[in-house]
């Protein structure tokens, strides 16, 4: 998890691939290269942090095909696309598919390095988010079924009395459950609890505020 991030370079053109690798190495980045999209998919381990530098046009699976494939598999590795000019429709498609950046050939080396850095940062951020989410889900997991019901109602803004009525118990019992939910979820306030609930999709923020 705290491994050095890697720049995965996928380009069918040997010499462009070698050049990109050389540039990335020259600034001390960790690099791995692949001659084709399929080759990358076959060996990619999504637990490894990093970003993908991808040529849009390649024989066989194109860069766009690879982007789709990764999405289908639920992988969120940030992608920096490299395109030739005249690839506007492709660029639009890639952007819609969630590409982080677009660099068109020929490009300034700093532009590419900046894009890589940006993508790495984004990956790190999303990995942090993922980790946090995992943590929250773990806390939710530890709630009893009854506590979960109370949790859901509390974050919807219901009063203890209303909750007791709805669940057919006493207000006192609800208070006990509520305290345990706060404790297990490590929430300091009702506001905290609502945020945690939103993070795991237990309630919709918009509907809530109305």
């Amino acid at each position, binding site marked *: 998890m705290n491994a050095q991030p890697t720049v995965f370079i996928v380009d069918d053109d040997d*010499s462009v691939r070698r050049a990109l690798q*050389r540039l990335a190495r020259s600034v001390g980045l960790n690099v791995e290269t692949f001659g084709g999209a399929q080759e990358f998919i076959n060996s990619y381990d999504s637990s490894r942090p990093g970003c993908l530098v991808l040529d849009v046009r390649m024989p*066989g699976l194109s860069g766009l095909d690879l982007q789709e494939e990764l999405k289908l598999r639920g992988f969120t590795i940030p992608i920096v696309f490299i395109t030739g000019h005249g690839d506007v429709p492709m660029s639009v498609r890639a952007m819609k598919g969630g590409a982080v950046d677009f660099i068109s050939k020929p490009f300034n080396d700093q532009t590419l390095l900046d894009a890589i850095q940006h993508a790495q940062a984004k990956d790190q951020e999303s990995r942090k988010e993922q980790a946090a989410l995992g943590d929250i889900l773990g806390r939710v997991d530890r709630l009893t079924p009854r506590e979960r019901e109370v949790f859901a109602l509390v974050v919807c803004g219901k009063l203890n009395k209303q909750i007791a009525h709805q669940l057919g118990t006493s207000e006192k019992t609800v208070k006990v459950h509520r305290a345990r939910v706060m404790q297990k979820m490590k929430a300091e306030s009702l506001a905290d609890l609502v945020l945690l609930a939103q993070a795991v999709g237990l309630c919709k923020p918009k509907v809530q505020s109305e």
Partner: protein
Amino acid sequence: MKNRRRVRKTPSAGPTIESNRGDRGPTHPALREVQMELPADALADRLPEQATPHDRERAEVELRRLTAIVRNVTDAVIIQTFDGGILAWNRGAELMYGYAEEEAVGMNIRDIIPPRVHQKAAALSDRIASGEAVGSFETRRLTKDGRTINVWVTATTLTDASGRPEAIATTERDITQLKEAEETIRVQQSEIAHFGRVHAMGEFAAALAHELNQPLCAIGVNARAAQRMIDAEEPLDELQDALGDILQDVERAGRVVQGIRDQLQKCEPEFSTLNINAVVGGIAPIAEALGRNDNTGIRFILGDGLGPVQGDRIQLQQVLLNLIRNGVEAMPDTEPDLRILIVETTKSNGDEVQVCVRDHGQGLRDSVAERMFEPFFSTKQDGMGMGLAICSSIIQAHGGRLWATQNADAGCTVQFSLPCYPEANVP
């Protein structure tokens, strides 16, 4: 008839040819000396002694029949001595060269040979005199009104009874118009081919720009990386590698540019001895550009031990590029990992080379297969339909064959074959 035929004894039997001039006015005095008719004993030497009068008559009829044919063919038939003295001159020769028989007989063959060819003609005549069979050849002649014409000449030696070479008989055909027509066709064909290449390069422009961009991009990135390496004082061999890669890419860009230049060049087709694999290799950069542009891989499978072919490199490359483009264009709906075009060279029939372009595309419907080689037949929205028509004419001019077959699995193969000529006996 009979009384008009003069019977004349010449010292030797001499070459004989009937001259049926009874209905053609008075004989030119000069001609009387060499008047060639069918002497009464013309056949004497050629018939066995025991020949019956019946044999003799049959032979005479046959001879007459042959001479009549000679008189009437449109080819010129001329008989000359080894010094060039014209002994006989048929109707075809009169029409072709403009001299009446009366004028021609007694002239020297040099009178109808352009001065520039004199020496060659004399040498040839010597070879014939020495008994060498020279067969047929192409040369030029002068007509009475001063035109130079191209003729196809077949020469044979006439011998006397003892087998001694005595005179030369030539059959000469005027091929001037044929040659002009051929030339016109050749020029037109070459112009259409050039037009096709320019058109194709226009179509390829985007792909080619991209293809040039690749090495340029790599060169730029490598140069920047090299600068960073210098700044970071990295080992020199890393720097060497970077510079080596840069040089390679410069060459690569150069090859693309050369390929484009070749195709745009307007030049007369020039036949030379070619290695078909080298011809195919020359268009690899452009072919790969086309492939990359449509996410199609191009695979070259080049056969071993293929004989040399005779041809115009640029036109053959044009054919290949057309077939490759068609193949790539046939595969937009093909699964990405099957989108591969195979270009293969093989030996076929022992003395031919075959070049196949095999795709994995939509294949050929019967209605397309029947008409695909026709000019202006296209099933593509912006196709001109000239690609295969031009390919056909080029391959035909190379003495080869171009055809298409449906593949067993998917797509089709368009291929051409060319005859191989061992260098020694190039036609």
